[in-house]
């Protein structure tokens, strides 16, 4: 008799008298539980999401499904951090394997698959045993991290502890059931069960056998019940109560409905002309996807760990803000649903749930979105709150007031006269675009390049490069206005649209096809946001353009710069537009220049602190973000910091001065370095 038959011969009584009734009962109850789950899903989640405004997220179904499968099963977005990723991966796959084994066994009894015994049972047993082992290892890693290491980003609630505890009890009682059954038929009599049920087999060696068959039957019955009943109630707890474990369905839903646009692209206010209110005052003014985002947040804290505002002691933690908004939704949502629409008195989000300092501390750097494993969109949510404050309540700081006033009056954030926009071009021989014969490209200088003394040098370098390369280019001159990025990120959508429409009209009037920008903010706005208003142009950033010139041989870099340089990735060039290689190619083309990376680079880069309109706001709280970024460059012993953004250049230039490193370190735009090397 082989071991399988021997095992089954000893097990028949347990199957027919104990397991079969319990399994049938479990399945019946489980069907009921699924019905309750469907009801609670509708009541606790779906209805709340649909308090929000409509938004189409059902396009490109195949792409969405592909992302969902990749992110879920390979943990695609997790592996930036090895420890928590390994931990979650082990628990996730462990649970999947346990369920695979359990499902085979659950359904094999009622359909008679195991009578006569078949090998599938052995494989199912092995799979769930290994699954359990993975969960134990992953669970131990998780418990060690949460209760011993205690990283500040993790918020441990009593329900987290309960889930670990309950899960451990279920695993233990599960292994005990099989271990006891193996012990009953004599563990040594079926030695190959070490391969098919390794953990249970080892445990079985420690079990004491009761003297009579009926007593053993009774004990097995007890053991199965002690495992199955808490398991069923665990499902009930997880399915029906809002536990952190509900992320097992909320996160995949959120991943499926993620934004397919590039990061950082803001949606315009719909029906702007007829709208009675703008932005978001209360929770139901968010879209349904934004409300789903709140519920999908797993409180993992990855966003908090990368947020420059949080790391410099500002009162902003993207994790905490999302959790607070989630609690606001859970508190206010049911009240809104129970009241007739005309009698609803929704509580405002600002002040009680989100503080003003918290909101304005955001630099729109998108590091939180990049870090989020479930694609939660934080930036658009913050901008919606800003839109309400700016457009409806006109409630903002004096810095913002001045910036917006300057933009309205002078079409640049500094309030400099429009007529001074081309002052920097004196003696450079730069022509206005409409005056150039057969122009190839419009050089969009931007406000920084036009007015800021440090960035005027960058614009000058770029002009010299263009002239040296024989490119037929022109500028808009005094007709150029702010691209609208500061107004839009501050929340003044009206001003953005006015500015953008004026620019689009001018460029269309001049017959502009291709635009070269120095500034990633202008680049992003012109390339990705102007099409929303009908401005479709081919937009190229100067790092891409310089790379093309160098690769094609139009630009020869011969003079060496014997320095160690680190490159600072601008948020709107890197994270938003995925341009990481072009700047590095340029630096590698310059003879003598040695490129080293800071700890945070590429899509993990650290903001300079100027995005989201922060360039024009004072930084009163905590450490200055630009100083922290400068420290990161000092750490790698760089002599130069290379940038490709006027905001970053200004912030790092200031950072170097503030840190007292001006003697040993300098910040340059890449075009300046290229010009030096020509």
């Amino acid at each position: 008799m082989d071991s399988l038959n021997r095992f089954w011969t000893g097990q028949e009584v347990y199957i027919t008298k104990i397991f079969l009734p319990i399994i049938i009962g479990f399945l019946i109850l489980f069907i009921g539980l699924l019905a309750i789950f469907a009801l609670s899903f509708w009541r606790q989640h779906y209805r709340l999401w649909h308090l929000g405004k409509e938004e189409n997220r059902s396009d490109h179904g195949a792409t969405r499904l592909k992302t969902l499968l990749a992110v879920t099963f390979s943990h695609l977005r997790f592996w930036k951090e090895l420890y928590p990723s390994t931990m979650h991966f082990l628990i996730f796959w462990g649970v999947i394997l346990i369920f695979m084994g359990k499902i085979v066994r659950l359904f094999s009894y009622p359909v008679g698959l195991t009578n006569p015994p078949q090998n599938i049972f052995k494989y199912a047993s092995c799979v769930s045993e290994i699954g359990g082992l993975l969960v134990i290892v992953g669970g131990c890693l998780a418990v060690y991290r949460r209760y011993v290491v205690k990283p500040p980003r993790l918020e441990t609630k009593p329900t987290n502890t309960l889930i670990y505890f309950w899960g451990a009890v279920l695993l233990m009682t599960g292994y005990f059931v099989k271990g006891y059954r193996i012990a009953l038929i004599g563990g040594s009599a079926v030695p190959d069960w070490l391969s098919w049920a390794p953990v249970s087999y080892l445990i079985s060696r420690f079990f004491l056998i009761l003297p009579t068959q009926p007593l053993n039957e009774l004990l097995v019955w007890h053991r199965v019940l002690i495992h199955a009943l808490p398991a069923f109630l665990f499902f009930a707890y997880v399915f029906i109560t809002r536990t952190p474990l509900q992320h097992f369905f909320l996160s995949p839903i959120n991943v499926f409905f993620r934004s397919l646009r590039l990061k950082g692209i803001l949606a315009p206010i719909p029906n702007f002309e007829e709208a009675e209110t703008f932005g978001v005052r209360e929770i139901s003014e968010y879209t349904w996807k934004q409300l789903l985002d709140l519920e999908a947040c797993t409180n993992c804290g990855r966003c908090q760990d990368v947020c420059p505002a949080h790391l410099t002691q500002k009162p902003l933690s993207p994790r905490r803000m999302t959790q607070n908004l989630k609690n606001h939704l859970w508190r206010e949502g049911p009240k809104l649903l129970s009241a007739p629409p005309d009698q609803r008195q929704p509580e405002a989000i600002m002040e009680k749930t989100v503080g003003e300092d918290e909101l304005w501390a955001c630099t729109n750097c998108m590091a939180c979105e990049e870090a989020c494993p479930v694609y939660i969109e934080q930036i658009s949510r913050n901008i919606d709150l800003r839109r309400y404050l700016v457009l409806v309540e006109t409630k903002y700081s004096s810095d913002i007031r001045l910036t917006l006033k300057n933009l309205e009056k002078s079409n640049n954030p500094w309030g400099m006269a429009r007529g001074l926009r081309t002052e920097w071009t004196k003696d450079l021989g730069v022509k206005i675009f409409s005056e150039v014969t057969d122009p190839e490209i419009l050089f969009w200088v931007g406000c920084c390049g036009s007015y800021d003394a440090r960035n005027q040098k960058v614009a000058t370098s770029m002009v010299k490069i263009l002239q040296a390369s024989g490119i037929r280019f022109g500028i808009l001159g005094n007709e150029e206005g702010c691209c609208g990025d500061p107004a839009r990120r501050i929340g003044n959508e009206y001003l953005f649209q006015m500015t953008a429409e004026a620019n689009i009209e001018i460029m269309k009037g001049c017959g502009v096809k291709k635009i070269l920008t120095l500034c990633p903010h202008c680049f992003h706005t012109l390339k990705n946001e102007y099409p929303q208003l009908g401005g479709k142009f081919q937009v190229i950033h100067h790092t891409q353009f310089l790379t093309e010139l160098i690769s094609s041989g139009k630009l020869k870099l011969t003079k060496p710069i014997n320095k160690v340089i680190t490159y600072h990735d601008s948020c709107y060039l890197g994270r938003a537009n995925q341009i990481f290689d072009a700047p590095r190619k340029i630096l590698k083309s310059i003879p003598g220049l040695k490129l080293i990376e800071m700890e945070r680079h590429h899509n993990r880069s650290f903001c300079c602190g100027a995005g989201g309109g922060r360039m024009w706001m004072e930084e009163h709280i905590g450490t200055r973000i630009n100083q922290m970024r400068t420290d990161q460059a000092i750490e790698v012993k760089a002599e130069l910091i290379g940038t490709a953004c006027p905001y970053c250049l200004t912030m790092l230039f200031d950072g170097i001065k503030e840190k007292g490193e001006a003697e040993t370190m300098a910040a340059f735009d890449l075009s300046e370095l290229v010009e030096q090397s020509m």
Partner: protein
Amino acid sequence: MEGFFRPIAIVVEVVILMAVIYSLFLGVKFSVLDFGLEEKYKSFICWVFMIMGCLALVFFIAHLITFYPRLSV
């Protein structure tokens, strides 16, 4: 030998059973609070479950001492 193992086996059983009971009661407590029961009832629920837990503990100990069979090692 038998007299030595039986109390240990009973203690192990009691620990497992109380772990199950603890999980269930805590789960029920969190669930009812999540379903909207006011926070002021939290301590009342705690006391009720603590008393029920103590009763369960006494029952398990008595039940196992009375019915847990003699062991043959």
